Structure formats: C-alpha cells, structure tokens
C-alpha cells in the first residue's frame, strides 16, 4: 500500500528568520521508498542515499544501505559497502544528493552526533521520524537540512508527482 502523505511545504518563512532558500525536490516514489525503508527497519534506524549527477542537485537514484550499527540510536554505513557505493557513484559521475536516516524515538531533527559527523557539504540531510507509528501505516515526520561546518539549516521539501508508469499501478 502506498504512503499517500504528500508534504508540500509552502513558502512560509520561519518568523524572525530570512526566507529559507534551500529546497529539496524529491519524486513521490523516492519519498515513498525512503519512508517505507524507515518503517520497515523501525525500531532500528534506517539509512541510505539518493544519488544524482554531480552538481545537478537532482536526487535520482535511491540506494538503501544497511545500518551496520543495527541500532535504534545510531547508524553507520558498513565500511566495505561505503567504498563500493562511492566507487559506483564515481563511475557514474554521481554524488550523494540526499543522505537520509531515521530517528525512531525522537523528532526528525539532526542530533548532535548527526551534526558532528555530517561530512557531505553538498548533500541534503533527510531525517524521517517513525516515533509515532513505527512499522505501521500512518504519517511520518519528513524533514530536510543542510549541515555545513556544524551549522544546521532546514529547507523546504517539495514532492513531485509519481511518474506516469507509477500512476497506472492499481
């Protein structure tokens, strides 16, 4: 069953702060895939990337990763799989446009550890919180951030409609 929640944040600025210029644009099926992964792995954290052409900011290729930490409070890509992922992206002239992971008991906001270890200055860091519904259907918190030099900046998330082939699926 498809997750039908479609969060399209408007142009609302946070009061007292300048309008956020950053936007993460994701296809509906990619959004759904990230949410499904987070729900499936709950109560452990799920993690992965969405790769795209270098410099394009287009999140195109969904790559779920194994959480080698297998933990409800920590995630880490396995070191061998990490190398394979980066070699693969390199061969395709891609970069990680999105790095996502889930929080299973807390809000979808980067933890101190997330901020300290963030090492992809070009990436959108997506946080999904499954704390409310766990493995079950139901809405999740789905938020995106830039994390650069320890500074967290939230950005809008825009979901584009599913492709035509997806629409014809019953």
């Amino acid at each position, binding site marked *: 069953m498809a997750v039908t929640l479609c969060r399209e944040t408007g142009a609302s600025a946070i009061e007292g702060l300048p309008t956020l210029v950053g936007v993460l644009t994701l296809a509906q099926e990619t959004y759904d895939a990230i949410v499904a992964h987070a729900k499936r792995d709950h109560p452990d954290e799920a993690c992965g990337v969405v790769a795209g052409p270098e410099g394009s900011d287009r999140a195109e290729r969904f790559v779920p990763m194994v959480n080698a930490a297998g933990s409800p409070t920590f995630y880490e890509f396995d070191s061998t799989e*990490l190398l394979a992922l980066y070699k693969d992206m390199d061969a395709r002239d891609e970069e990680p446009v999105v790095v996502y992971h889930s929080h299973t008991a807390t809000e979808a906001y980067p933890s101190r550890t997330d901020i300290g270890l963030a090492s992809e200055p070009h990436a959108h860091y997506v946080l999904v919180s499954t704390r409310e519904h766990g493995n079950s259907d139901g809405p999740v918190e789905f938020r995106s951030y830039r994390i650069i030099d320890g500074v967290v900046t939230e950005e809008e998330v825009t979901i584009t409609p599913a492709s035509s082939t997806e629409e014809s699926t019953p």
Partner: protein
Amino acid sequence: MAIEVRIPTILRTYTDGAKSVEGTGGSLSELIDDLEGNHPGIKGRLVEDKDGSVDLRRFVNVYVNDEDVRFIGGLEAPLSDGDQVVVLPAVAGG
C-alpha cells in the same frame, strides 16, 4: 611512480579542490606525513591522539587497494608505489 590518494569532498579544501593527489611512503603513517607536507592541516583530519599514541580517527575510513586499513595494520599498513588509497568519511550519526 607514486601513490594515488583519493580525497573526499569535505577534505578538498586542503588540496585546492583536487579529487586526487599523489604522495609517497612505505606505510600509511608515512604517506599521511608526506601529504601533510604538501597539504598542511590534512593530517589532523585523518588521525588523532588516542591514549598517547596516534591512531586513525574513528569516523574516517581509509582503504588501500579496496581493503579497509583497519584490517591490514591501520597506520602501519604497508604501501608500495602504484597503490591506490581512498579516504572516505564515515556516513554515520545518531
């Protein structure tokens, strides 16, 4: 001949944006010292003091010819001309 070292995005501020640089050394430790000579500051991003001795940072992965150096001697991992070294920060968090 030399050793090719692939540099991750986050450390390219030390290499004038270069994705890969060359270095020399008979071990990873010597290679890192050699890199530090040409790219000052980079060593501190790769290693740290642990109980009085220098070790790789916990959340930095280094591979020699696709082998994680933690399984082949860490900083003492032997290197030869023509080897390829890849540096990748862990993708991790809480």
